């Protein structure tokens, strides 16, 4: 079995392993806590020293804590939603909606009254915005109106079913209406230029920043299923002001890919640490034959079509004054993909 074949199979195997979205909020919260503990530890140690030397340690401790304190303390988080539901809404108003309901930024509607609506529909019944042609008329609607728009929970009846279920659900959603504490808000949705259809990643990022949130952007390949633009946490989810929201955007893979790495002299009688050297890297494969200059720091990079390449190099001083051509090599053929730059070190083995 070739190494390329193994890489391809392993990636296919991995792509089928389900992975949830990154718990970025929890990671940042726990990370900051961990960092604070470390800092407090360092501060505490400093204080002991200072107390011994000058007897003024207490003032230093309180000063250290004030540096990290936010100017306005956010209120408590929303209470846990009823079992099987999650909070979703707009601005500082949220309702508890069933967990299974989809909430994609792409579902963006402009109604006749001039307000924009996000529509959430019960999974598997109707996808679309009322009054889209072909969708069922909504049986019950819960609308949360805020200055910047309306967040609409639309409960549709399944074809042929009785609407009692929809009415009961609408009442439950309505009864759960909750106002978020100061310092909390629902992840906003950017207005779409056309009024209907997905907003762009740029627009979504701008809307998030305007709402006082931090933005992290990630590109996903266009062949992954899902909406054109989505966020984590999802649009409508309550978050603390200043939190980071990831905006995922599906993009068509670019035609070119890249690799980068170092040119290193390694080994030798005394087995010294790998040392970066200047030289010329030679990339060959898939009808391409290119040379890349490597400067004194040993770093080099190459951009070209995605594919598999042999990477060799020559380095002045290695094997001869001029460097024997292609006498240094990477320890494997390089598969260059658009998804991430390949990391390739090229080694000149000293004997």
């Amino acid at each position, binding site marked *: *079995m*070739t*190494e390329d*074949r*193994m*890489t391809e*199979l*392993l*990636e*296919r*195997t*991995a*792509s*089928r*392993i*389900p*992975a*949830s*979205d*990154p*718990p*970025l909020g*929890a*990671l*940042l919260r*726990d*990370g*900051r806590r*961990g*960092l604070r503990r*470390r800092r407090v530890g360092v501060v505490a140690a400093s204080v002991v020293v200072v107390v011994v030397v000058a007897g003024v340690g207490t003032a230093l401790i309180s000063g250290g804590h004030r540096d990290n304190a936010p100017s306005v303390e956010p209120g408590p988080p929303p209470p846990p939603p009823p079992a099987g539901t999650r909070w979703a809404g707009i601005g500082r108003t949220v309702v508890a909606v069933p967990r299974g309901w989809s909430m994609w930024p792409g579902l963006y509607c402009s109604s006749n009254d001039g307000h924009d609506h996000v529509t959430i529909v019960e999974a598997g019944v109707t996808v679309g915005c009322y009054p889209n042609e072909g969708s069922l008329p909504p049986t019950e609607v819960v609308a949360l109106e805020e200055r910047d728009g309306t967040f609409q929970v639309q409960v549709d009846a399944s074809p042929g079913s009785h609407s009692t279920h929809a009415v009961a659900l609408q009442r439950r959603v309505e009864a759960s209406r909750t106002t978020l504490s100061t310092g909390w808000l629902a992840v906003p949705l950017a207005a779409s230029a056309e009024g209907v259809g997905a907003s762009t990643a740029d627009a979504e990022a701008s809307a998030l920043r305007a709402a006082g949130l*931090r933005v*992290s*952007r*990630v590109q996903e390949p266009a062949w992954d299923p899902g909406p054109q633009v989505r966020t*984590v946490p999802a649009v409508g989810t309550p978050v603390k002001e200043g939190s*980071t929201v*990831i905006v*995922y955007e599906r993009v068509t893979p670019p035609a070119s890919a890249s690799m980068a790495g*170092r040119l290193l002299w*390694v080994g030798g009688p005394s087995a010294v640490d*790998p040392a970066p050297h200047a030289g010329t890297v030679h990339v060959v494969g898939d009808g391409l034959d290119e040379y890349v200059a490597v400067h004194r720091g040993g770093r080099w990079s190459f951009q070209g079509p995605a594919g598999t390449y042999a990477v060799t190099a020559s380095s002045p001083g290695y094997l001869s004054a001029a460097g024997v051509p292609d006498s240094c090599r*990477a*320890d*494997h053929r390089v*598969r260059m993909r658009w998804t991430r730059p*390949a*990391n*390739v*070190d090229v*080694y000149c083995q000293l004997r």
Partner: protein
Amino acid sequence: MDRDAAFSEYAAARWRVLVRAGVLLGCDPAAAEDLAQLTLLRCYVKWPHVERAADRHAYVARIQLNLLRTARRRRWSGERPTELPDLPTADPATRLDDADALARALASLPAAQRQAVVLRFYLQLSERQIAEVARVAPGTVKSRLSRALTALAAHPGLAALREGPP
């Protein structure tokens, strides 16, 4: 870019890779997510080191493997999942294809060989980087990979792959 923004970008981009690497290394999916979360937490606290690392992916892979080793030492008498979970596919007829067969064959490898295969062919680390991450000699990595590839090629479930790509 401040720490939170830089970290968030990195975490968002690498989360799935870390979770999937955890599963390929023998964790069940829930444990793999825990492991990925712990790895990223460690990265957040040591972010300046992560940013300065000559090879960030290799540095983070080392953190992940160290945490995995620690977790396994702690539950030495507990259950050790060695098989990958059933991989979801849309069409049941395609369940037993090459990738599924590889998943099962991978589970039959000794831990060190399996780790070398995942680091080399999934995380795309070089043999030298794997040697640094696993703290073994480069020659050991080479022999582990060679043995693993031989074992995988001989695995009955991967018989078709011995002939090369279809």
